[in-house]
């Protein structure tokens, strides 16, 4: 019983990482219509930058988290402003560009800092109910970020513009909503979330150039399962996927841990082509 609870807990922790990356990708995909694979690279670069900030500049972990989010935001802003925007409407070019950015940046990281894994120093000691505080912090911070994103989209003026643009782009434009601003904000939001996820997960595992691959793939599964455009759907699917794959690894076989997501994806899409919560 205890191990079951522990595994569910660990599933929720890794699930919150998936959900964070997925939320960013989902918002970008549903509003700017770009399947932004480069978020996987943003995840990695933010993790490295915050690692250096903590180890070399000795800044506190909380600030490193904020820094990672800023780095993620900035990268996503630049990618949108100077690359994706150029090919708006040309979906295939944007897709290729996104994939290229992902590989390019993971390779840049590899070239700059080698493939050797780096260990993030522990920033909190102690544990509660068998979970280290650092693991609990992941869930808490992810929850806070989810609430903030929700409030941002539902309550602020720019959040409202984002929703309007996603529901009726042309009508939003003739009412004075600047679609370029909307896209910039959406990408910055996504980048901040991926950056946060990268920094949050670093102290639990290790930092290495391909650390973004699996979270990116899982997040894509979550986005597709959750149906585009629903914050709640992403949250439930992200956490659910984390739990299912941890349980699968514990009780079925850990050899397939990273395969379960795709089995679930195929099963769900066979019966529900629009995903579990799909509106579109």
């Amino acid at each position, binding site marked *: 019983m205890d191990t079951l609870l522990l595994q569910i807990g660990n599933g929720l922790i890794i699930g919150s990482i998936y959900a964070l990356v997925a939320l960013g990708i989902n918002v970008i995909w549903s509003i700017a219509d770009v399947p932004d694979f480069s978020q996987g690279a943003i995840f990695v670069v933010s993790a490295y930058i915050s690692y250096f900030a903590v180890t070399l500049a000795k800044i506190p972990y909380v600030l490193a988290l904020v820094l990672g989010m800023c780095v993620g935001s900035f990268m996503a802003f630049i990618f949108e402003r100077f690359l994706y925007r150029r090919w708006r409407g040309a979906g295939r070019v944007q897709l290729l560009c996104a994939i290229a950015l992902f590989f390019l940046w993971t390779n840049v990281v590899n070239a700059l800092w080698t493939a050797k894994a780096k260990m993030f120093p522990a920033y909190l000691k102690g544990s509660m109910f068998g979970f280290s505080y650092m693991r609990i912090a992941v869930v808490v911070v992810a929850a806070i970020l989810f609430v903030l994103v929700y409030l941002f989209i539902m309550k602020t*003026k720019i959040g*409202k*513009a984002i*929703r*309007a643009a996603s*529901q*009726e782009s*042309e*009508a*939003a*434009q*003739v*009412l*004075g*909503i*600047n679609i370029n601003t909307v896209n910039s904000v959406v990408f910055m939001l996504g980048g901040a979330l991926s950056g946060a996820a990268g920094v949050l997960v670093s102290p639990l595992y290790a930092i290495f150039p391909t650390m973004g691959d699996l979270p990116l793939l899982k997040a894509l599964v979550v986005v597709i399962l959750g149906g585009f455009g629903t914050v709640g759907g992403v949250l439930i699917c992200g956490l659910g996927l984390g739990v299912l794959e941890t349980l699968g690894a514990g009780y079925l076989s850990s050899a397939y841990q990273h395969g379960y997501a795709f089995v679930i994806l195929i099963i769900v899409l066979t019966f529900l082509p629009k995903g579990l919560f799909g509106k579109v």
Partner: protein
Amino acid sequence: MFLSIRDLYVNYGKFEVLKGVSMEIEEGKISLLLGANGSGKSTLLKTISGLNRPLSGSIWFQETRLNGMASYDILRLGVAQILEGRRIFPHMTVVENLELGAYSRRNKREIAREIEAMCERFPILGKKRKEQSSNLSGGEQQTLVIALALMTKAKLLLMDEPSQGLSPLLVNEVADTITGLNKDGLSIVLVEHNLRLGLSIADQVYVLENGKIAFDASSKDLSGVEYAQKIYLGG
């Protein structure tokens, strides 16, 4: 001149839609734009409001050149558009929709007051103010679309088929609304397939054919009506 379009060319890729449209629109009038399906009426309106970019030619609104400007700047100058096909924001309430109509303005108190006024002017909107707009009936949604456009405080309103899909009774209501707005000083360019409705309220008629304005006359001028009828009935 209020709105002046000179030698406008608009393409979709290789497909030429507008091939040298020129027209002058006067302030305070209801101008009816007619033309067969696919003749480019919606394209023309969207080019005025900045959604489409012209290949060449110019659009002037009160001494300002509109083409090349972004749609939000064009809106700020006072040109609003009602798009074809009742484009409301379905996952938002009636009031949230109206707030979006005032997106380009800041004064919150004034906006709140105007929303109240709008709800009084169109009681069906007042009654359903907290409802998701996707739950409104077709006629109610069309009213909402018009109210949304009014929230922008435009001087010139481009209306693309506001009567589309409405029952005859509601069509008359829309016609009354349009003439009422015009009496209050709003200039209107109207695209309308319902000839009877269009001609009954318009001051000036323009016919778009083969990518150009083929005809331009006062709506009192019967030859214009005949010309328009010929186009619609085929001939």
